[in-house]
């Protein structure tokens, strides 16, 4: 039996919140202090990689349409790729800082997938609004991880990067097809089915 879609969204929202808090902690104390314990350096990339792996069951079991399948698959792949690149940089297997651009690429691909697979307009229902908002957020803020490639020690960029994940988490937590406030925005969105 499949869980409702919003439960899965909340699960991943928790993952993004964890990512945001980890990055925020690193931005606050500074990378040198953060990496005094070597294992802390693996927390962000390891969590991102794990989330990519966990996205695959979502891709294979939610096959209501081809475009959903492809969108979830794209998210799974880019999260794994971005997490893998960051893990490899931490481990010393990769050396060029340009590999950090993988996260920017993940943002772009994820945002594009969100925008393409949501066929309803902004104001159809809450989840439609969130899909558009999240999609444009990811596309626009891809500049932040890209800038970090060239300014890895910038506290402002580090904080902004962390906050993006927190905002993603808040948006995913807000996803609910039926809600007392701002659920179905249009009466023709249909009766609540959960």
């Amino acid at each position: 039996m499949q869980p409702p879609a919003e439960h899965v969204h909340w699960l991943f929202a928790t993952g993004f919140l964890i990512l945001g808090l980890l990055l925020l902690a690193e931005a606050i104390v500074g990378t040198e202090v953060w990496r005094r314990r070597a294992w802390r350096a693996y927390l962000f990339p390891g969590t991102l990689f794990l989330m990519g792996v966990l996205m695959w069951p979502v891709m294979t079991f939610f096959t209501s349409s081809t475009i959903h399948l492809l969108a979830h698959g794209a998210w799974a792949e880019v999260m794994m790729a971005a997490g893998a690149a960051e893990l490899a940089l931490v481990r010393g297997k990769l050396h060029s800082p340009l590999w950090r651009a993988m996260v920017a690429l993940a943002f772009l691909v994820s945002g594009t997938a969100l925008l393409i697979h949501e066929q309803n307009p902004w104001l159809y229902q809450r989840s439609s609004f969130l899909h558009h908002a999240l999609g444009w957020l990811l596309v626009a803020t891809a500049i932040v991880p890209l800038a970090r490639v060239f300014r890895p020690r910038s506290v402002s960029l580090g904080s902004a990067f962390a906050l993006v994940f927190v905002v993603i988490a808040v948006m995913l937590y807000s996803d609910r097809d039926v809600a007392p406030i701002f659920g179905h925005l249009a009466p023709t969105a249909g009766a609540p089915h959960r």
Partner: protein
Amino acid sequence: MRRLAGAAVVVAVAALALPAGALAHATLERESPSFRERVETAPRSVRLNFSESVDPVALSVRVYTARGRVVSGRPRLLDAGRIVQTPLRKLDRGAYTVRWQVLASDGHVTSGVYTFGVHVAAPPPTAAFGASGPTRTEDIVRWAYFLSLALLLGGLAFRLIVLRGPLPARVERRSLLVSGIGAFATIQVGILAFILRAEDALQLPFGRLLYGDLAPIANGTRFGTAFIAMTLGYALVTAFVFLGWLTDRAAFFWTALVLGLGFASGLSLSGHSAVDAGASWKSQLADWVHLSAAMLWIGGLVQLGAVVWPLAPELRRRAFLGFSRLATVLIGALLLAGIYLSVLRLPQVSDLWKTGYGHVLLVKLALVALALAWGAAHRFLAAPRVSAGSGRLRRSLVGESLVGMAVLLAAAVLVDSQPPVQPPREPPRAVSR
């Protein structure tokens, strides 16, 4: 700045509060008769319940017999357009295909297909009326899948069994790169293969296929179940390959290899060896052994020709002799399993030249014979020269690899072909006294 922020908040709240035009695509929530249901009483109508109301324009629900005769009337809308009811003629015993298409209010068309049976079991949607069966494109995609698996599993096995221990960095890197490409390609090609099979079942142009309901194919067919299991499995295998590279621990590579070989059984459990007449756990096991041996053999040849020979002349002797020993075992297993499967699938020897399946099998056997002869030449003629430290073999290894890949192409066509029909078993005769 504060005014701007305040204005943004007001706009957002207003946007959330104000209603907007309704645009949606309708998804099928429930159907009656239901998906692949076997009914004992012929239904008088087909009812489709959708998540949203649908438009009468471009509404289409057709019910076909197994031979393509239309047995449905004109569909009508009920419950404010959420239910589509289609009357049926009196249905005889047999399997039926329902093909539906609805237009939601945003102009997007959603379509689907499913089957049901009256007094018989319903076929899977991939065998519904109108599905044309595997196409040449699917044969090529299946071939690409076999190649990807060969690169992945053959590469890992070569690294772990033939070239054990530390390797020069450049060799390690290229070897894992080849396996990594195989892992990535396995997932992508698997997804493509599934979408192509769904396209064939749904019979939709690509634009509408994007909104086609894939659940009946994913959840209701062996192919779909294999797709789910193998996609998940090879995502996990990819993760383990990466972790092995990251940590330099062979345990991750071994885990990836064992899992990869295990999940390859999805092909055997969803193919001819699982569903055709005479299928049993023995045929499925033989099919898996046959496939796995081929993957390891061909993938190993690629590693030999593309990694060891150009990058590590000092490792050629060890790799060549080690792979020769492994290949002997693999070829033995491959031939034994292949002979068993051929005897199972061809009721008569004459089927080899009288049936399409037999023709493809003959081509495959010829290619296999060529590959074996080439391998034997390497084993018995080239090996002593390699042992002595000489031997330009790269082109020859590449040649053998290419023949092996051609064998995989023939295998891909065979998998998508229908074996000859097995003759019916004669009932036991009563002994007269």
